[in-house]
């Protein structure tokens, strides 16, 4: 994919898309995990993505974050070609990701996990010289407050409950201060109350940043009140409001029928 071929972005338009996927395909040994997928996410938008197992939701996130290289297609973040960058560079551009299975650093404390995620110079020497300033500490404390883990600051991540781990990972996402958040199944293992809290948090974040949420829980998706994209067999099946997609016969067939 060279820059010349990729479609020109109209930079004059006020709301140029943050994320732009066009014709993306990923083939593993003949299996098409993504099939000519296109997706556009605008600044500040909150987008929910749903789809049955194997629809390509996680693969799509892998493509955006640089874990998987697409076989074909365009993946852009603002005006950066993501297909040429590795995970770390993509993360530093301002794309944060929360994994389906909460992943953090078990040997470190909650505080330390957040400290690692905090936006700061990432080089080895910079890390060696790093000293925790008052401001950084305040930021970490405020995020701990926000995700409800202030009391557990000095506990190791390994001993947190599943829900708390989800929260910690969301907290790490916030520390990164990303422009685009990719959130994979954030409420799995959460109580109803926590789920509600999470939905509210994501809606709140979305004002300032773009958020893409992958979720199975349709109640949660409804609570987000956002535009919904339905994936199936690696392609987009339907897009629109939650009511729209729930009534789309193709969606019903995929979820219920055959």
């Amino acid at each position, binding site marked *: 994919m060279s820059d010349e071929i990729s479609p020109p972005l109209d930079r004059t338009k006020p709301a140029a898309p943050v994320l732009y996927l066009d014709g993306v395909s990923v083939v593993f040994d003949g299996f098409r995990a993504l099939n000519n997928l296109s997706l556009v996410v605008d600044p500040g938008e909150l987008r929910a993505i749903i789809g049955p197992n194997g629809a390509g939701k996680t693969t799509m996130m892998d493509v955006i974050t640089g874990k998987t290289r697409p076989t074909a297609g365009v993946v852009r973040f603002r005006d950066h070609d993501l297909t040429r960058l*590795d995970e*770390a560079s993509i993360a530093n551009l301002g794309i944060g990701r929360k994994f389906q299975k909460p992943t953090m*650093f*078990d*040997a*470190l404390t909650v505080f330390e996990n957040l400290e690692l995620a905090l936006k700061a110079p*990432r*080089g*080895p020497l910079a*890390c060696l010289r790093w000293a925790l300033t008052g401001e950084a500490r305040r930021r970490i404390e405020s995020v701990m407050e926000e995700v409800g883990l202030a009391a557990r600051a000095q506990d190791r991540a390994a001993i947190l409950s599943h829900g708390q781990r989800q929260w910690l990972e969301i907290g790490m996402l916030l520390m990164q201060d990303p422009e685009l958040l990719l959130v994979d199944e954030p409420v799995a293992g959460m109580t109803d109350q926590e789920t509600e809290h999470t939905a509210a948090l994501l809606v709140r974040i979305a004002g300032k940043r773009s958020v893409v949420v992958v979720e199975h829980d349709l109640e949660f998706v409804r609570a987000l009140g956002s535009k919904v994209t339905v994936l199936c067999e690696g392609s987009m099946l339907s897009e629109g409001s939650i009511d729209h997609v729930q009534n789309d016969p193709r969606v019903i067939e995929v979820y219920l029928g055959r």
Partner: protein
Amino acid sequence: MSATLASPAPAGTGRLTIRLVLLGAVLLLALLPALNRLPADSALHVSDFIVSITGKWITYAILALAIDLAWGYAGILSLGHGAFFALGGYAIGMHLMRLIGPRGVYGHPTLPDFMVFLGYKDLPWYWLGFEHFPYAILMAMAVPGALAAVVGYLAFRSRITGVYLSIITQAMTYALMLAFFRNDMGFGGNNGFTDFKELLGMPLNTANARAALFYASLALLVASVLICARITRSKLGRVLVAIRDAESRVRFLGYDVTRHKLFVFVLSAMLAGLAGALYVPQVGIINPGEFSPGNSIEAVIWVAVGGRGTLVGALLGAFSVNALKTWLTTVAPDLWLFALGGLFVAVTLFLPRGLVGLFSKTTT
């Protein structure tokens, strides 16, 4: 994927105790050469043997620290650290050979005996400069560092981790061993370098030289502990632990994992090289056997026995396993391999956190 066991150094009061114990151990070690000067019939007299063997163990302990930094913290299990150690040893060995000068058996003013012997007319280019001590010390760090940089860059860039990395590094040291065994390499082949005369104007094989080398090793050990502690306590240390436990997650946080791993791997190789440079004048020989894969694995096992992921563990392991080995090879020359092999099995099976795990109260 990689080892999931825990534990950076225990916090709070534990840390203080460890500091005190370490300080005490260093002071005790520092006394040894002095006690060696006491008359031989004094109750406190320490024999030359004890001094020289302890000096050797100190260099092993530095090697163990270097391995622990890479493995215990960053999860890079290198089975080729013996190669870095040996390269450092060869660098200083080349210096020592140059210092022999015309005192070799063939009396050649510049060429070491083995070169005279193989019909060399001039020093090979890569031997130039080794007559200067600072250059040799620089090379003892630079060569292992450069090798680690190349191998590490290639391996980390293509995300070779875990056992694959272990196998690659093992093949690296194996290839070097085969290469150094060749007489045509210009490093003395199987015989390597021996019969050193002096270092920095100090005749080796004297109590003074032994004491000096001992203190130099001890100083390097203390410096290494401080450097390692500085790293492991910094945010870099936490990044390394994070890489060890969930490498790809660290990438998604925006850290360039390759650079971090490379940094610690190269640093670790340089430490190992320096340890080797202090080891060789103390044992009086360097030969390609030091590159043998078994040596590297043994050094890793010291760390495992002591308890990886803790600096004290690396030190404890290096001293205790080597003391045991020295004792057993005399007490039970036919059976010591059973004891040592059995120890390795028992530690991996029952003491996943090593000897340190016995003392530390922290829970996982």
